[in-house]
């Protein structure tokens, strides 16, 4: 009986657990720091367990509809509502479930790492409160089926992220980076709110499925789409709206930076969700496909070329995050560009999208790992300046091994997971346009070159005198890095399992607009 209640309310618990844990965190922290740490870890572990259970239900039984304020999914459409699902609902399909898995997996690793790496800092009750709020916001963004509800979670995510970026207030630049992020997020949020107003004004609905059913591709719809794409592309750090990314990623604590990658990907998810599920084939998919592809190519090229000359390890990695986002945009953009042509979609469109979506998962894992290794280095030597590093391979052997795994994965070297998703992108994009595939490969080579530089600068060479006292980081930090490194290796060695069981259903859920509408409007 209790189990049934829990299972039937999993989508609500998914957001409620981290939210409740966040607000109780300052209170629990007053008892003792150790109890606070246990509280935060337990909240994250429970959230992860809920997400995995929910994902299992979705992948085995189909899309889960959860209607807030109703006892059953089919009550989302009250008799007197004119057929409009007026209540807020979570629509957790395989694409949402995949994003939830990614968010909680990285979140779990990051929390374990953070409990050790940040234990010496002050203001931790605020830090963990905001951290859990960010987790809650990301999970809400990827679960909701309501556009205004998406905006609310987007705003929570923006505020939480800005707070975390500016957490190290003793560093003026951190506050400046937080403010920059907040300004960009505010403008993006206003754009998004305008778009919601336009869609609501026309279709008298906020539910994604009902808007998808009624959308006409009017000039107002076009304006709304442009505002949505611009705002979410800015939030995910796509070039030329990426400028906040290096500032924020560089100044945030390493654990936060790893989580920022996931928060950015939630915006990317939103972009894909709106384009495919809300607009679908009603939009000019060839034009929009090329818009997404061009944003992707710009992100890849500008991101990697700006990364190479960087002198700060986290700033360099931030530019690589921009570059890797380009691969996701490229893969999904190609799928969008052929959305209305079933033959081309079957020939290479689905594969390109699988590559793009698989890269979201892989990127969250290896980039999370790389940011944690950068944090480990900074934790020990107190600087992110590559010119002041060298010879750390003698003292930090495990960190070095984890860095190598992450670096090879991001550079697309087999058999790590980055290669598997890039391989799908290369081969499918080549069939769409060979030049795009060549650019993608060149960017991978430059990525490898960049990480060879970092590896040389940080780990190689004789031990430096000023690093005589440096030793390996504490066990929880190593454990968190090992956790992500193992996932990078496993998803690289057995990509078929991940693509078949997680990615393919997600891609088909994303492209099946009619199926989405049927499930939601049919009341689950």
């Amino acid at each position: 009986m209790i189990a049934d209640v829990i299972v039937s309310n999993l989508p609500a618990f998914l957001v409620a657990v981290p939210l409740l844990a966040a607000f109780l965190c300052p209170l629990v922290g007053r008892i003792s720091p150790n109890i606070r740490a246990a509280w935060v870890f337990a909240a994250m572990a429970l959230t992860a367990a809920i997400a995995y259970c929910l994902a299992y239900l979705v992948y085995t039984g189909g899309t889960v509809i959860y209607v807030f304020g109703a006892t059953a999914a089919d009550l989302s459409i009250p008799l007197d509502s004119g057929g409009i699902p007026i209540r807020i609902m979570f629509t957790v399909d395989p694409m949402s479930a995949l994003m939830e898995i990614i968010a909680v997996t990285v979140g779990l690793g990051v929390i374990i790492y953070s409990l050790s790496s940040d234990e010496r800092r002050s203001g931790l009750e605020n830090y963990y409160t905001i951290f859990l709020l960010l987790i809650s916001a990301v999970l809400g963004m990827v679960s909701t089926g309501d556009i205004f509800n998406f905006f609310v979670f987007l705003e929570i995510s923006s505020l939480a992220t800005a707070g975390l970026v500016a957490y190290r207030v003793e560093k003026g630049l951190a506050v400046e980076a937080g403010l920059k992020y907040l300004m960009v997020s505010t403008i993006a949020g206003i754009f998004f709110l305008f778009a919601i107003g336009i869609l609501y004004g026309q279709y008298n609905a906020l539910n994604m499925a009902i808007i998808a059913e009624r959308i006409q591709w009017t000039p107002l719809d076009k304006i709304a789409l442009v505002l949505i794409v611009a705002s979410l592309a800015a939030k995910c750090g796509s070039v030329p709206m990426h400028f906040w990314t290096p500032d924020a990623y560089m100044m945030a604590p390493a654990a936060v930076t790893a989580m920022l990658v996931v928060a950015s990907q939630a915006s990317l998810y939103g972009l894909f969700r709106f384009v495919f599920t809300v607009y679908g084939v009603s939009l000019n998919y060839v034009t929009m496909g090329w818009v997404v592809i061009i944003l992707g190519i710009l992100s890849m090229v500008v991101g990697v070329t700006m990364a190479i000359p960087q002198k700060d390890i986290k700033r360099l990695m931030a530019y690589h995050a921009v570059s890797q986002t380009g691969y996701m945009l490229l893969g999904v953009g190609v799928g969008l560009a052929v959305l209305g042509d079933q033959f081309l979609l079957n020939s290479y469109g689905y594969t390109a999208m699988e590559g793009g979506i698989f890269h979201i998962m892989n990127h969250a894992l290896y980039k999370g790992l790389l940011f944690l290794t950068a944090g480990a280095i900074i934790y020990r030597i107190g600087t992110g300046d590559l010119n002041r590093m060298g010879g750390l391979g003698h003292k930090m052997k495990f960190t070095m091994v984890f860095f190598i795994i992450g670096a090879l994965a991001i550079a697309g070297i087999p058999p790590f997971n980055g290669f598997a998703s890039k391989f799908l992108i290369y081969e499918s994009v080549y069939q769409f346009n060979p030049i795009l595939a060549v650019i993608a490969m060149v960017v991978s080579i430059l990525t490898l070159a960049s990480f060879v530089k970092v590896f040389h600068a940080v780990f190689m060479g004789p031990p430096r005198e000023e690093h005589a006292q440096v030793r390996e980081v504490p066990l929880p930090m190593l454990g968190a890095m090992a956790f992500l490194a193992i996932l990078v290796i496993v998803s690289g060695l057995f990509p078929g399992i991940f693509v078949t069981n997680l990615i393919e259903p997600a891609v088909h859920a994303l492209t099946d607009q009619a199926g989405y509408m049927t499930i939601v409007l049919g009341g689950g």
Partner: protein
Amino acid sequence: MGLLSSLYTGSGYWNPLAWVLAMAVAAAVVYLIWRRGESSYKKGTMQTTPFISGNAEQGKGLDHIPASNLYWGYTEGIKGYYDRIVPLHTGITTDYLLWIFWVTGILLIVVMVI
């Protein structure tokens, strides 16, 4: 069997385990070649000292090339590109916002016209 399945792309496939197997064979061949090498190698003798045209070896602390000096040729080779792209990263918040407005405007024209 699922564990051993390949990743199909529609025009090819990728099997990481086959790749790992190939690497293992290559490593075994490398090891066998290495085994046939000089067996009288002794660490810490003249055999391990680098020959720098008869000059003495520098102190090891001076040998590490810092990050800023790496890829100098690459950045110098495409200096024209960097001269244009780096100044765009002004660090000024209003510039960041201006770029969002520019992109929105261009997207609006593209979506409305095409």
